[in-house]
């Protein structure tokens, strides 16, 4: 597998965008740090799945999205929902089951969505959103817009039937989707290589859908931005989907309850050194950006996160009459007429 050097055409983000990508990564990192703390305090029930170490993908793609574009992601979705501009407070509140949660407490950690920001859901059944993303893109195409859909999923998702069906349909119908496989090398606890017939679970399958393989460094926000820029402009121009495989790594376990002991120490260390935020910070500094700008971002991210978390913690839990609300479009939950 050779990767196609997308971004040989100039596609690098402008400086303001790059600083914004840094800012978003820092916000996401800080948000998730707080989520983990809340989890360890016993306030996030069930579990949650962090993208720590994978933030460059979310921000590099999102920087290419416009209002009206849609994002569909997985249970590992904090980064993607935040990157579209969703409220941190409402996200915290959802994670801890409060009435002010994004979903009023009904969805929980695995289903974060903010439709007003184009975040059309986090999907907890592996692969299910891949055909759904195709449908969102079909709607954009049918309505004659130049809207684009970004659809994120893991390496493990490439082995499920819905991936195959969704990719084929999107390719045949030339739908405006940017499929992004976040290859973090593991399913839950099993290395992807041990259950996949190809080395690059997404890129090595692109041609099965008539697409060019695109294999990129998912820990470099600039690289992600450039690949996404090209994919988005193809999609907006009516040239159909792109399948990007972004290589990355999660710093923590699969979910908050996973100590991730199954990973070789050397591998973990190697990837910790490739931290997308550290890399990006150094690059911006090396290029001459004033460190105070970045420090200011770092500090205010923590402040914003802290404020959002406090507000969420102060919010009430939902009232039980919510249970039978919003099954149907009329707001009710009745199955009798």
């Amino acid at each position, binding site marked *: 597998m050779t990767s196609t050097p997308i971004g040989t055409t100039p596609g690098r983000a402008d400086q303001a965008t790059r600083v914004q990508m840094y800012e978003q990564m820092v916000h996401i990192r800080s948000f998730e740090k707080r989520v983990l703390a809340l989890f360890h305090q016993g306030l996030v029930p069930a579990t949650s799945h962090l993208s720590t170490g994978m933030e460059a993908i979310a921000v590099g793609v999102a920087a290419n999205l416009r209002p009206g574009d*849609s994002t569909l992601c997985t249970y590992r979705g904090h980064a993607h929902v935040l990157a579209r501009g969703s409220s941190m407070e409402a996200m915290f509140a959802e994670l801890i089951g409060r009435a002010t949660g*994004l*979903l*009023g407490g*009904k*969805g929980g950690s695995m*289903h974060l*969505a*903010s*439709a*007003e920001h184009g975040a*059309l*859901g986090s*999907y907890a*059944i592996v692969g*299910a*959103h*891949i*055909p*759904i*993303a*195709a*449908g*969102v*893109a*079909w*709607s*954009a195409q*049918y*309505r004659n817009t130049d809207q684009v859909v970004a659809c994120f999923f893991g390496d493990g998702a490439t082995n499920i*039937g*819905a991936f195959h*069906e*969704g990719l*084929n*349909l999107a390719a*045949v*119908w030339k739908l405006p989707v940017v499929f992004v496989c976040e290859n973090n090398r593991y399913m839950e606890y099993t290395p992807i290589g041990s259950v996949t017939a190809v080395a690059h679970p997404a890129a090595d399958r692109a041609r099965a859908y008539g697409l060019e393989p695109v294999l990129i460094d998912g820990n470099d926000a600039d690289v992600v931005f450039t690949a996404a820029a090209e994919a988005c402009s193809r999609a907006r121009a009516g040239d159909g989907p792109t399948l990007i495989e972004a290589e990355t790594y999660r710093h923590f376990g699969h979910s908050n309850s996973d100590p991730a002991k199954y990973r070789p120490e050397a591998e973990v260390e190697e990837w910790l050194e490739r931290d997308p935020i550290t890399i990006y910070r150094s690059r911006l500094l090396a290029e001459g950006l004033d460190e105070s700008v970045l420090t200011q971002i770092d500090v205010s991210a923590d402040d914003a996160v802290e404020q959002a978390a406090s507000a969420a913690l102060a919010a009430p839990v939902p009232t039980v009459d919510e249970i039978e*609300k*919003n*099954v*149907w*479009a*009329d*707001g009710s*939950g*009745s*199955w*009798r*007429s």
Partner: protein
Amino acid sequence: MAELTYRQAIAAGIAQEMGRDPSVVLLGEDVGAAAGVFKTYSGLYKQFGPTRVRDTPISEEAIVGAAIGAAMTGLRPVADIMFADFLATCWDMVANQAAKTRYMLDGQVTLPLVIVTGNGGGLRFGAQHSQSLENWAMAVPGLKVVAPSTPADAFGLLAASIRDPDPVLFFGHKALYAVKASVPDGEHVEALGRAVIRREGKDVTLLALAAMVPRALAAAEVLAEHGIDATVVDLRTLVPLDTATIFEAVSRTGVAFTVEENPRLLGWGAEIASLIAEECFEALDAPVVRITAPHVPLPAAGVLEDSAIPSVERICATVLERCA
């Protein structure tokens, strides 16, 4: 009043809605130039063209998945799943995604989509192409469930399903596709959630759905000869369920039977029987008796299939035995 077959009525119901609302689109295998393998979409491709009537690959998850995504973003997709049995191949999309998304997102999105499928037996297609699966859908919160018994209802309930803002499973019955009957002229829309009394009788109530409605009606005529006057209720939609009409009919006769094409265990009649018991216990002279297929996969050979699905004879025999 025009005479239409049930299959033509399906096409007409969709055509009516596509004509008035450009957000209505149809997708599925062979639904375009081929007009569906049961010819339930005749004329649509010609009238509305390939961007509104789209052939898909054999990818049921993608068909329903695409419908979900499109419905979330302003379209009103009608997704064809050729045989109801194939719902199993996309059950996650139906039961976990379409049904739950609005609730999980606390109303952030609405999903006005319809899945139209060929349900039911009687055509010797065997165990994987003949199932009556309304009960699968009824068991899943978040799905509306429609199963018409006449061409007029196929038309009017399909139009209503398309206008409905929630996910609807529309079960066409393959054994009824060729049935011809009159359909109201002009715009025709029925309401979801309303059962219809097809025959008034004072002695017993037969609760039936889809292809079992004409059988219940035929049985009622035979029973009349035996001095038993039967009410026949056509349930039409299982969700929302018209418990008012059901309870009223059952309370009037005191004796009720369900006539179900599905296998016994957890057929739709189980829920209705349990509701009647809980809510009309005092009015019951006898328990609700369920007439169903045996709890086996449906066999292919004619003689076997015919004796598995409730027949007019079996309905009559059951009623007569219980009323003896």
